């Protein structure tokens, strides 16, 4: 059958903390993930400072058709990274889709006070924040961020497999700027329910490859009782729209 076209909102690449270099190139990894286009979380962002990961991300992204990078976001006042406004000028050239919040190794809570200047700039420039919620950082921070920056675009991924609509749905309802990556939301009936409650334009296909099988989310969306237009929105159109003004004017 014809391959389903996707723009993956979250796949992973690179050398993990205390791990080995990947055997495959980014292009080969994307091919295995069945993603013509993908926003890639480079794992080195978790253990190398931004001044070293930014050139690495830019270089890998430049070499790989269809890849879009993310830069780690830290408070800019200590001087570890340039101000957001300055960095944003390079986004289109370097195919950077937005900023990634990677709390674990950098000892900074994602409380809005810590990132007031950065989130204000992202809000003003429509730069998406990719917020990955794992066992440590909390939804409460995200709610506080959205209260203070209601126009911020947030791509939310949640490393919590148990059905968690009790947490996700109130956030989605309260803050229309949040879009949801689907690779971890594998609850029975989730796609139809999410589309019914929030529409298809806030849902993003993601694979979390290579940790997860890409076919899982593909099948969930492909087999859902939603319209073809909804499926196209989820598979690739929403991601195109989300970063259209930043890195992907040529889409």
């Amino acid at each position, binding site marked *: 059958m014809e391959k389903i076209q996707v723009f993956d909102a979250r796949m992973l690449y690179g050398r993990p903390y205390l791990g080995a270099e990947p055997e495959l190139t980014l292009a080969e990894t994307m091919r295995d993930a069945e993603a013509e286009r993908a926003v890639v979380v480079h794992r080195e962002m978790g253990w190398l400072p931004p001044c070293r990961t930014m050139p690495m991300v830019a270089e890998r992204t430049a070499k790989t058709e269809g890849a879009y990078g993310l830069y780690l976001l830290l408070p800019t006042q200590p001087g570890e990274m340039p101000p957001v406004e300055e960095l944003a000028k390079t986004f289109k050239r370097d195919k950077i889709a937005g900023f990634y919040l990677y709390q674990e190794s950098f000892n900074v809570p994602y409380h809005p006070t810590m990132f007031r200047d950065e989130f204000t700039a992202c809000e003003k420039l429509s730069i998406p924040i990719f917020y990955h919620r794992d066992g440590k950082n909390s939804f409460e921070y995200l709610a506080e961020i959205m209260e203070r920056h209601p126009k911020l675009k947030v791509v939310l991924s949640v490393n919590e497999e148990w059905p968690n609509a009790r947490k996700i749905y109130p956030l989605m309802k309260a803050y229309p700027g949040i879009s949801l990556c689907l690779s971890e939301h594998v609850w*029975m009936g989730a796609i139809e329910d999410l589309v019914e409650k929030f529409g298809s334009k806030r849902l993003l296909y993601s694979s979390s490859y290579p940790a997860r099988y890409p076919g899982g989310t593909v099948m969930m969306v492909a087999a859902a*009782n939603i319209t073809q237009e909804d499926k196209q929105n989820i598979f690739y159109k929403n991601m195109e729209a989300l970063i259209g003004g930043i890195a992907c004017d040529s889409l």
Partner: protein
Amino acid sequence: MIRYDSPLAEEFLTTGKCESCPIIDMHAHMFDNAGCNMLVDTTAKQVAQMDKNNVPLAFMVSHDVLYGGFPYMEADHKAAEAFPGRFYQYVGVFDPDCDPKRDIDFLESHKYAVGFKFHGDTYGVSIADPSHELYYAYADERKLPILFHTWCGSRCDGEGEAEKVLRKWHNFPFIAGHSFQRIEESIELCKAYPNLYLELTAVLSKRGMVDAYVKAGLSDRILFGVDAPWFSYEFGIGALLSADISDEDIRNILYRNPLRIMKEANIEIPESLKKFVNE
């Protein structure tokens, strides 16, 4: 990779189900749940999901029985009766209040009750505890399936405790729910104990595990389940379609292996599945 060239993938991805490849769900629950909400929270909704993906049959025990014990068992059976031939019931062995005679009586007097479910971690009681001997003896004599929650390293239902049970009982299908969450240990145990089956709930969310089991020659020892109504059948099917395994392996997992277990245990095979028994 997604095996877009596979006939199974084409049918599943375009219609959500495959007529020639029914699914027997060996690890299901039922109803709503306090710990996290179920979008599919009634038996009717669960059956609708099963129909959507051609799941003619599920083996289940409700959350209520797992957390509340025997008083909720009758409601599970009534749910099975309301949809004849769609559900078989595991009798939940509720520790520390287990009562083998009462539970076996229940199983013998209820048409859709066909096996047991143990959840050692929930009760803090090892599955190898001597209080379970009567259940195992009863199931072993009849080759009835027993579904165990199994989790790596657990002092209640990890590999070590499972081996204590497997060393003694060689006939009942020991269904390791979640496959211990460990690849090498699961494979070693399977090779040592032919009545051990690996079940895929929470396994298919980690890329590589099922590939390793099949590569180790265990395609005929793997069973499908998704903790329904927790997780989506579609997610599980899609994961299998992008694992490094063949369509024949997928057929083994989705219906051939459970049918073999049912046949050996003399569990009545629903009409819709009879044509697949001799594949």
